C-alpha cells in the first residue's frame, strides 16, 4: 500500500488515493481531502460525511448513495449538489473510506 502525505501527515492509501486505514482519518484531514478535490465543507457536507463514518463503523462497508438517502436521510438530489457528478465516490474519499461496492 502506498503512503502519501496529506496536511503534513503520512497516511496509507490505495492506488487511487482512497485512505485504507480507518483510524488515520480525522476531521482536519477531511478538510484537506475535500480541498484537494475542490470541495469546501459546509454543515450539510459534514452531515453526510459523519453518517458515512458512523455507518462504516457498524456495517464494515461504505454506504451507497441510496443508503445515505434512505438511512442517512439526505435526499439524493442534495448529494449531487454537495458532491457534484460522483457523489458516492467523493463522499467516501473525504470520509477516508473505500469506494462503495454496492450496485445500488
Amino acid at each position: 500500500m502506498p503512503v502519501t502525505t496529506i496536511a503534513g501527515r503520512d497516511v496509507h492509501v490505495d492506488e487511487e488515493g482512497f485512505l485504507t486505514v480507518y483510524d488515520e482519518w480525522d476531521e482536519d484531514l477531511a478538510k484537506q481531502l475535500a480541498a484537494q478535490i475542490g470541495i469546501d465543507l459546509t454543515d450539510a457536507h459534514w452531515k453526510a460525511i459523519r453518517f458515512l463514518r458512523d455507518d462504516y463503523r457498524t456495517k464494515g462497508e461504505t454506504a451507497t448513495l441510496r443508503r445515505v438517502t434512505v438511512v442517512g436521510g439526505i435526499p439524493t438530489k442534495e448529494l449531487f449538489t454537495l458532491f457534484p457528478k460522483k457523489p458516492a465516490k467523493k463522499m467516501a474519499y473525504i470520509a477516508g473510506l473505500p469506494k462503495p461496492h454496492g450496485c445500488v
Partner: protein
Amino acid sequence: MNRVNTAPAIVPNFDDDTATGRKLAIICSKGNLDMAYPGLVLANAALGEGVETHLFFTFWGFDVITKSRMHDLKFTPLGNTATHLPQGLGGIPGMTAMATHMMKRQIADVGVPEVPEFLEQIVASGGHLWACRMSADMMHLTEADLYEEVEGIISAADFIEKTEGAQLLFI
C-alpha cells in the same frame, strides 16, 4: 538550482476538469419485472459516475412508466430456462404471483427499491425519462397516464437526436 523533491499527494482523479461528454442512452422495451431492473440499475450506476443518462421506454417497457401498472410488474418462469424449473410448473395458476412475490423479496433483500421508487431515485440523480410516441398511440395512452417525471412522449427520431454521440443499450 537545488530542488527538494517531494512526491505529490496521491489524489483520486474524479475527471471533473475534463468534460468527457460521455452519454448513455438506454432503450427499455420489456415490461417483465426481471427485465425492468437491468436498465434501471445501469442508469443509476451511470448517473452515479456523472454520466448524462436518458431512458426511452417503448413497447412492453411502457409498463414501467405507466401509473396503473408500474407498481405491479410481474415475473414468470415460463419460457425462462434459467430458472431451472420444469416449464410445466410455470403454467400452474398462481405461479406467476408466487414467482413475482419471491423475486420482489429477493430484490428487497439486497437493498434495491421497487420500480416506482427506483425511477424516483434516477430522476433525483439527474436521469431523463422519455416515452415512445408510437407505443403511446398504440395503447391510447397520454402523458396523464404516465409517471409524472416522464419528460415527454417523443418519437424514435427525437430520441436519436437527443442522444447524439451516446453509448446505447437496448434491453
